[in-house]
């Protein structure tokens, strides 16, 4: 069930340039079903910015009723969020959407987790849950440049981890797809820019592939029809899926990206 709750901030840290890790105490944690779900945050206790901000859950702890988000400070909403301190309360709506299906890969199989930039965070909880299930995980994390890299050590604890940067200032120079050719795996879970998701869909249509999409959202609960996408088998018809409530994770080939 989706809840609206005022959640006290436990901690907030800048873990890379303009990248913040924010942990809150929240009863709504008990409602989280899957890695890859998100919450909708009201950043201002005022009219500006008016709408909530969708932010993915990067890890959660149901026993201690807390969860963590990692976001990039970019616009007005996230800039306000970045100024908030422990003890302050955040108006959070969630959990929202459908996340990554971990049942699609069995223990002893290998899952490849591919993240691009601010698409990396939801893969962290996914990685933890897959490892707990006995799945081998390999991570390929792509960033723009060295200062944007985060969570490499955390991912390394769960399995093999490759980091790429577009400008080559850290790790392997290039895009995530440049290192994937040499890896063996049964299933891919990915979150990142649309261009990355498109490239994966194009090259790995023979694999089980799950993609987490991003779209501008209004309500986050499926009522406003802002974040709809077309179905791949009905590209010009009237059928649709909503990224917020049907997704954000879809099986590759289900919707047009």
């Amino acid at each position, binding site marked *: 069930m*989706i809840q609206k709750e005022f959640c006290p901030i436990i901690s907030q840290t800048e873990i890379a340039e303009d990248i913040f890790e924010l942990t809150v105490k929240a009863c709504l944690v008990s409602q989280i079903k899957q890695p890859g779900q998100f919450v909708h945050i009201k950043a201002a206790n005022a009219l500006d910015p008016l*709408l909530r901000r969708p932010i993915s859950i990067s890890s959660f702890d149901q026993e201690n009723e807390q969860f963590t988000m990692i976001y990039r400070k970019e616009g007005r909403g996230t800039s306000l969020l970045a100024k908030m301190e422990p003890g302050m309360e955040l108006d959070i709506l969630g959990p929202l959407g459908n996340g990554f299906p971990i049942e699609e890969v069995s223990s002893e199989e290998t899952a490849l987790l591919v993240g691009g930039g601010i698409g990396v965070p939801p893969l962290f909880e996914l990685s933890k849950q897959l490892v707990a299930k006995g799945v081998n995980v390999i991570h390929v994390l792509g960033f723009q440049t060295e200062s944007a890299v985060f969570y490499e050590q955390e991912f390394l604890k769960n399995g093999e981890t490759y980091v790429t940067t577009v400008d080559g200032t850290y790790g392997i120079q290039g895009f995530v797809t440049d290192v994937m050719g040499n890896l063996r795996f049964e299933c891919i879970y990915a979150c990142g820019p649309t261009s990355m998701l498109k490239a994966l869909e194009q090259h790995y249509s023979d694999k089980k592939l799950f993609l987490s999409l991003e779209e501008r959202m209004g309500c986050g609960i499926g009522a*406003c029809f802002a974040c709809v996408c077309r179905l791949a088998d009905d590209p010009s018809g009237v059928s649709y899926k909503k990224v917020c409530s049907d997704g954000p994770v879809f099986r590759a080939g289900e919707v047009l990206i």
Partner: protein
Amino acid sequence: MNRLHVELPGLKLKNPIMPASGCFGFGREYSQFYDLSKLGAIMIKATTVEPRFGNPTPRVAETDAGMLNAIGLQNPGLKKVISEELPWLSQYDVPIIANVAGSLEEDYVSVAREISKAGNVHALELNISCPNVKTGGIAFGTIPEVAKQLTRKVKEVSRVPVYVKLSPNVTNIVEMAKAVEDGGADGLTMINTLVGMRLDLKTGKPILANITGGLSGPAIKPVAIRMIYEVSQAVSIPIIGMGGVQSAEDVIEYFYAGASAVAVGTANFVDPLVCPTIIEELPVLLKKLGFEHISECRGRSWNQHGQLAYHRA
């Protein structure tokens, strides 16, 4: 003491608060948060004869204290609304106001004829003011004679009272209001969104795929208040006011301007519980302001005696 009961043509409202069309789907999403029977009424998403996909994305862009949308009347079409959405809504004790849209006069007439037969549809809202579709919609809402004619045609076939949703994107809203009153409208709903635009800082291009969109939210409230103030003094049919309503205070301001009920739009996206919250807060605020009944607030901006008998339960 019931301070909120309001009666309007076709509508016996336990309170004058209702979600605005397009901001509430067909109610399903919000039923996760509260019992929809708490609402005065529900204005369901615009219905057209055929299903519509709507516009490409991005469909929303945030603005200062508001948002632009260009959804493009996405809806499952008349058949599905009648066979699935309205029967589902009938589990709730709440009158439905069906928003009727189309490209041609005969589209409006077909939708109005069929949808007004549904048992829980107590009124129609004629959408002649959607700014986000290429044909129909706003074309009917900017020329008084055309609006009047369409209202008349729809009135001929509708089994329930017809409210006409006015566009603020006109030079003279009073003239439009009078024209649809002449055409036989039982009430008005106002205002629809204001046409606006936002450009991306990096690319310089419009953020919305549709280029322009409809501005809603608190930013437009003063425009709506002014227009209701003018129109309510010029016509004798009731007005359901809307535009940036977020609180019980906003509702009172709309009544002062001349509205007889109020719809809540964009605020539902920010706080899914906003309608029941306002409904709870209204009686407290009325008491604080010294009103026994909300109808006493109506038209206070222009009439010291401020109330009309037919609004009283």
